[in-house]
């Protein structure tokens, strides 16, 4: 999937993945896609809930070699 920007939040513990995601997405235009990489297992539920409440769309998530990847479309 084509992402406008990739955020590497691997190795960071909660709440940093979401703090960084929030900042990164604020720098995008509506409709653009942010790809987030994290190793924090709790991020899955938190990112989907956060995206929903912020009006963004979680397009897809995947796990590769213990890294969770998320594609979020800015609302």
């Amino acid at each position: 999937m084509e992402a406008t920007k990739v955020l590497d939040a691997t190795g960071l513990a909660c709440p940093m993945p979401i703090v960084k995601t929030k900042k990164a997405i604020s720098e995008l235009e509506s409709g653009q896609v942010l790809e987030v990489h994290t190793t924090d297992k709790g991020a899955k539920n938190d990112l989907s809930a956060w995206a929903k409440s912020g009006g963004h769309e979680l397009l897809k998530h995947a796990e590769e070699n213990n890294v969770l990847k998320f594609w979020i479309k800015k609302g």
Partner: protein
Amino acid sequence: MSVSVITSKEVTNKIFNKEKFFILDVRNESDFQDWKIEGDNLEYLNIPYFELLDGVEEILEKIPTDKEVLVVCAKEGSSIMVAEMLSEAGLTVSYLKGGMKAWSEHLEPVKVDDLKDGGAIYQFVRIGKGCLSYMVVSNGEAALFDATRMTDIYLDFATSIGAKITHVFDTHLHADHISGGRLIAEKTKATYWLPPKDATEVTFEYRPLEDNHNVMIGNTTINIHALYSPGHTIGSTSFVVDRKFLLSGDILFIDSIGRPDLAGKAEDWVDDLRETLYKRYRELSEDLIVLPAHFMIMDELNEDGSVSEKLGTLFAKNHGLNIEDETEFRKLVTENLPPQPNAYQQIRETNMGKINPDIEEQREMEIGPNRCAVR
């Protein structure tokens, strides 16, 4: 204002003492709905931390200033962030050290009673998950029942009272938590006992528990009498200790009974469960003190935080023991069951020795409440 830190042990004591306090849980809503810190006099507010990144002004008026406020999250990081923001806004708050992860792992030892010949029986209350394990001590020897994976707590406790662990039992193959039994037995060179019918797929050595088998602890007459009581699993075994205590495993709880479906065999095992609860247990003395392997709700705790009740009282009051109609009983334990425990299949495989997840994976697998009972 300052931010202070509170340990799971301190929170446990507050709950045992029925203290009033306020919990600001900053995990996401579904995690909070699924599982939270419970107690008699707690008030809650659940706002996910990611709703508070821009500030806490909007929730300030919802937080009381006349009682202690505890901020809680999954692992601690987010609760520190929110606690600091609240502190800067002028509130005095604490956060839970280690978050719900630590809460899930905390064990509180409570002495249940003395034994007839000078020994004692202790209950380890895993308050965050509702799991109960036991240590029976006599004359410098100790036996453990249904130990959790927090093995150091039992080892340290045994050392502190000058006892050597010589026997380790699991009443059944657990599906809700990872057993520490095998590891403790390895470390202490104790004998590890399992019901053979639950252990057909295990990958390690164990001593098979048979019906009517007696094990002595110490050189006194503390006998542990194993009683075959299938229903939660096919091998489930209860123990009568010192002719006074009935360790009922996951078959009978204080306000609920065991569920027969966690190995996927509700229909097959419902008759066993019925037979155990309505025939085998009926043949036992009503004066036995029931010590179960779980509790579900805080109401099941006694004043001192322990969980126990006379068998006769349970025959009178426990709904699951008072369903005359077999069809109705079958319905209760096979239909509308609560959700199965988190990762229960992987937990069973871990307890069989088939998979060896690392400590972080074990923690993730055990997240949430135990859900071994039906009411």
